[in-house]
């Protein structure tokens, strides 16, 4: 009973805070960070012959552990501003299981809910490896098009599917609302960052972490180059 009351109060507080946070206080007069993530090494791509569901999965599975594009651009790196106060535009996070791959391969989200879709229409299972949040392992059969899961604590969560062992994805639950994920050319854009001096944290699933100093000025775009190393 008492526990329920505590939970209720906490939930009310969170809901209130969330409502309050919807007014983007720091958005006005913010600056933009354009991060360019590069990696000089070779791409790491594993290939596997598929023995089932070839209609949806194709005959060859490609596991993209390190994806390097033009001009050494490194894809799928999470870039986040630490210490910035305020709220960014909130879009509900979403990850899809499409072609027996997690799309996107890395999804960054604020603490909260994420929609997990199954557009393949075959059995997948969402198996997460986490320590701060509870690990989940839930079946998502063909008729279950969307599942909503909550991840409340900041953490990089590995997501796999045991039915298709090559499937690998990451859900990056970020403590600050200012983050981005680098695209195929290695570019990540973070908008409406309140002016100030911050640490810019970069994370990649196999290449680890790096931190850079960054200064954001109102109405300006600051470019940051980050070279990831093994």
């Amino acid at each position, binding site marked *: *009973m*008492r*526990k329920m009351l505590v939970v209720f109060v906490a939930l009310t507080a969170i809901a209130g805070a969330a409502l309050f946070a919807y007014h983007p206080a720091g958005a006005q007069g913010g600056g933009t960070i354009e991060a360019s993530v590069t990696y000089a090494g070779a791409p790491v791509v594993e290939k596997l012959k598929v*023995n*089932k569901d070839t209609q949806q999965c194709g005959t060859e599975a490609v596991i993209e552990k390190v994806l390097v594009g033009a001009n050494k651009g490194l894809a799928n790196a999470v870039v986040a501003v630490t210490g910035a106060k305020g709220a960014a535009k909130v879009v509900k996070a979403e990850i899809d299981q499409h072609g027996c791959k997690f799309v996107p391969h890395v999804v960054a989200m604020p603490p909260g809910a994420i929609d997990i879709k199954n557009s393949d229409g*075959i*059995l997948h*299972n*969402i*198996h997460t*490896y986490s320590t701060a949040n*509870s*690990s*989940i*392992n*839930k*079946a*998502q*059969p*063909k*008729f*279950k098009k969307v*599942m909503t899961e909550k991840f409340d604590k900041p953490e990089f969560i590995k997501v796999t599917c*045991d*039915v*298709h*062992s090559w499937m690998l994805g990451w859900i990056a639950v970020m403590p600050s609302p200012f983050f981005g994920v680098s695209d195929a050319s290695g570019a990540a854009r973070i908008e409406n960052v309140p002016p100030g001096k911050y640490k810019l944290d970069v994370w990649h699933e196999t290449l680890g972490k790096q931190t850079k100093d960054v200064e954001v000025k109102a109405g300006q775009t600051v470019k940051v180059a980050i070279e990831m190393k093994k």
Partner: protein
Amino acid sequence: MPARARARVTWAGGVVGAVIVVVAVAATAGAAWAQAGDAGAGKAVYERKCASCHGEKGDGQGPAADLLQPAPRDFTRGAYKIRSTADKTPTDRDLFDVVTHGMPGTSMPPWAVLPEKERWNLVAYLKDFAPETFKAAPKTLELPKEVASSPGSIKRGREMFEAIECNKCHGNQGRADGPSRAELKDDWGHPIRPADLTKPWSFRGGMSRTAIATRIAAGVLGTPMPSFMDSVEKPEDVWHLTNYILSLSPGAPRYATLVTVASLAGPIPDDPAADLWTKLAPDTIALMGQVIQDPRNFNPSVDMVAVRAVYNDKEIAFHLTWNDPTPSAGDGARTFPDAVSLQFPPKPSGGPERPYFLMGDASDGVYLLRWENGKGVGEATANGPAKLVPIAGSEAKGIAVFADGQYRLVIKRPLVSKDDTRPTFQPGVFTPVAFQAWDGGAGEAGTRMSLTSWYYLRLEEPESNRRFVLPPVVAILTLAAMLLVVRVAQMRS
């Protein structure tokens, strides 16, 4: 605390009293899951009975751990496979049940030999290894109302089995041969096998209806088996699935100790799928891993074979059925041809002395009827597993078929042998027989096999009128003898 609380009620009003009642109720509810085990006393039992596998620190790194597969549980992670709860935290009863009943199919034995109090103490101590997990009370799993088994429920269960694609791991007929089998790993990265749903007695958490429904609903933590509670069409489908799964097996293996060879008047069919074979009730024989000679087989793949046998005036035939989730003709490196053999002494009526059951030895050989994937059926002699010599001009023949994780094989041979390297089968004689099996797809070959020690087989006597004639004759003779004895006694007196 309740005493002090009650004292407060005397001077305070009913409001305070109500609050105390609420707190007391909450405390009692909490006590229901926290059983009164003594962790300190549990430590002593743990160090004596558990630490050699699970490690002194509970990290699953005991001295024997490297020899065990599946690996012993790492208690410090607080992840338990067998839970009756909706989240990570098991109930004390869940832990107590695993300690008591063990984990079938693993190295974890049942510890019912320990007094109940000691087992509860152990549970208390185990929880201390992962305080984080046990900080919160377990979340009760609400199973829907039980649905009794019926043809309709089993049919719905099969539909759901197909809709949620249980076959991906467990196979179309539940024989653990699904296409994802080879890829499965547990959360620690160790390869793990799906359960063979046709052998519920091997289920880790037990084979009761509630246990099976709970595994489907809550999943098996730390393994690829996910939770299906929110992923079936209707909640009661977990019961339909349970009923379907239980319909796949005879309930218990009912292992035989004697193989009966039925007498047949007509010809024996070659086809393993022929009607005759399905009509005969099988004798089920249990196989064990070969752990006497190196390299040993601690985790055998084939653990039972169903035997049906018939003979007529010319031939004897054996029909064998066994599950093999990984059919293989062998690549010669990591996989080998699947094989099975029936073993007999060369002279079955040679008295109580039998050759060494492990394929004979240097002085006493054995005779084998053997099938190997790719090579087919043949006869062989052996003087130990390493000395197997095919008999030239084999008179054995046979056909094997494979479907959905199961082999069915017919091996035939003339009833009477032409020479003394092979036995002649005679009705009414108890003939020693043993079995060996190799799942080559799982890397089994040579001494890495499953096997039995000697069993017996007996050819049923052909039906005759003797049974109607002999007993009356014996009765009359006995009566005559008795009369004679009486007569003699009377004459003497």
